[in-house]
């Protein structure tokens, strides 16, 4: 929904239903809205049954990779004699993405409940919510919610009188995009530099503190509660296109659009109607030129591609991109693409942890070349050099930050080559709207 919080009738608000209701942030307010009923139900079930319900629902990870959540939970073997851990990835830093921020600042108890359900399902006694340091407001509400939940005995030594111990701790990051990468997050949580680890071993075998760990996105964990309450069938039915993509998804929309905000739609919703009806279309006198639909790390879509896309995991791939984190960046005809892409590359150069040469050097070279082109000092060879660097940066590093930098650059050059060439040939970018304004 845009702001103020009035959902569009075409939205399906399951997770975002209580956005804008200040009262929903308190324990009493959350309970009035049916809060913690799902946890109560979960604690009366066998963990394996919870995993099965989530598996059956078709819920997939909402952080970017789209891995089936139930399957991820099933990797945690019960009775191995080791402490298990749940990590909630609330290090939302992907440019264009701000849905988890909304979830945590409006419905913090939903996340405490989701963490407790997840922890119980995977046999963990401790869940850590790793929140990026810049999120002072979500952090405040989360700390408050955790405190209230402990005081009410909902979590702690004897969670809701079940005899099970479930601790939830909020952990504040300190400014590093890379800590949103799951193994970097674990390194950071352990008190180290946030350098991603080589996989395998995967977190389910050796995660945080060397113990079996599951890491889930905020939105994924919050979705577990309504699935448990309403059943897997209910969730599975919310799918407009491909049965492999089920449920609702939050899309955070930003950039050059009438109504930026966080919208919740059923998987498979037509992207064209989403952009023009729900988000209100382009700003006055302008036209959409391109969309980055899943956060800065996914390929840029032309409007032809975007308008033919159905909004689910498979639909975005068919439309030449990826669903990613659901961070929709809308770019209009007043923006020079080279500037937009150069700034993205600079972001990745700044955030590279520096472990792998391809990434450390590649992101910096890419940025320098793009900024040279932007400033009218590019040469004809630069585009080939950029594509070559991009190729060398793809699939060769410990984590995918390097690939993430190459993706918008390669797709940008392929889809908007004319703008690059014009700058190289000494023609300046003339925003279409210069004539309108």
């Amino acid at each position, binding site marked *: 929904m845009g702001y103020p919080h009035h959902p569009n009738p075409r939205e399906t608000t399951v997770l975002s239903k209580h956005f804008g209701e200040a009262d929903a942030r308190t324990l009493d307010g959350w309970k009035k809205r049916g809060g913690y009923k799902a946890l109560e139900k979960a604690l009366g079930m066998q963990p394996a049954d919870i995993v099965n319900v989530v598996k059956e629902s078709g819920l997939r990870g909402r952080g970017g990779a789209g891995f089936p959540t139930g399957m991820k939970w099933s990797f945690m073997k019960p009775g191995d004699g080791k402490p298990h851990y749940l990590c909630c990835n609330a290090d939302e*830093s992907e440019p264009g993405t701000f849905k988890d921020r909304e979830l945590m600042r409006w419905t913090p108890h939903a996340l405490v409940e989701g963490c407790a359900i997840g922890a119980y399902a995977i046999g963990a006694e401790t869940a850590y919510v790793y929140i990026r340091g810049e999120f002072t407001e979500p952090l405040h509400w989360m700390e408050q919610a955790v405190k209230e939940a402990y005081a009410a005995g909902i979590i702690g030594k004897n969670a809701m009188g079940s005899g099970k111990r479930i601790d939830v*701790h909020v952990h*504040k990051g300190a400014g590093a995009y890379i800590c949103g990468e799951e193994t970097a997050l674990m390194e950071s949580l352990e*008190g*180290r530099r946030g350098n991603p680890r080589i996989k395998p071993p995967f977190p389910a075998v050796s995660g945080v503190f060397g113990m079996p760990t599951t890491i889930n996105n905020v939105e994924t964990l919050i979705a577990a509660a309504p699935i448990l309450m309403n059943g897997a069938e209910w969730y599975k039915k919310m799918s407009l296109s491909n049965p492999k993509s089920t449920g609702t998804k939050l899309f955070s929309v*930003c950039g050059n659009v009438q109504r930026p905000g*966080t919208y919740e739609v059923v998987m498979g919703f037509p992207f064209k109607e989403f952009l023009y009806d729900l988000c209100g279309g382009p700003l006055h006198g302008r036209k959409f030129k391109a969309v980055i639909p899943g956060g800065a790390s996914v390929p840029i879509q032309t409007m032809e591609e975007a308008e033919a896309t159905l909004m689910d995991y498979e639909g975005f791939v068919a439309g030449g991109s990826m669903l990613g984190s659901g961070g929709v960046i809308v770019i209009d005809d007043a923006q020079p693409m080279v*500037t937009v892409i150069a700034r993205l590359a600079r972001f990745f150069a700044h955030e590279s942890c520096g472990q792998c040469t391809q990434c450390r050097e590649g992101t910096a070279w890419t940025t320098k070349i793009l900024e040279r082109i932007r400033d009218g000092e590019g040469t004809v060879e630069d585009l080939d050099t950029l594509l070559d660097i991009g190729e060398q940066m793809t699939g060769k590093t410990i984590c995918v930050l390097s690939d993430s930098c190459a993706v918008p650059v390669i797709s940008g050059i392929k889809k908007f080559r004319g703008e690059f060439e014009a700058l190289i040939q000494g023609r300046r970018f003339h925003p279409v709207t210069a004539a309108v304004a």
Partner: protein
Amino acid sequence: MTPDLVGDLESPDYASHDRAAHGPYTPVFTGDVKRELDELLTHYPTKMAALLPALWIVQRVHGWVSEEGMAEVAGLLELTPAYVKGVVTFYTMYHQHPVGKYFIQVCTTSPCGICGAEDVVKALVRHTNTGELGLTSPDGRFTVIEVECLGACGFATPVMVNEEFIESMTPDKVPELLARLP
């Protein structure tokens, strides 16, 4: 983009910050603050895991994380000062030098960039009299830096003043924002 305001990929020049002017170091972890750390240590199976939270406490008390602060934390968590410094320098939010009373962070990553974030940066640098990104104004009140994605892209341009998160900042609103800071 404004090349005159946007530095290159290297860190801003912090040479103007006078570390020595801040007097002798007073330990952070005594009394209530020590108890706060002891409580934090119960959250984790290792002492090292309390490193990031402990450094946040140092910054909260002193306004920045000095080498003495790093050494104090290292002693409490059974780490070496060099290790702690390695961690501090990895993260962008720990100040390794004193900063202005109001530390202002402006997001200029692409989603905000296409909504006019550069103009907000220019207005902030001009009205705070800091002269340049990363430097502190002569009266010691302000430091302005450009940061990567603050995660509030739908509310371009987000600005953080110390712990306060301000959405939808525009160049016009900058004087009003600065005027209300005590």
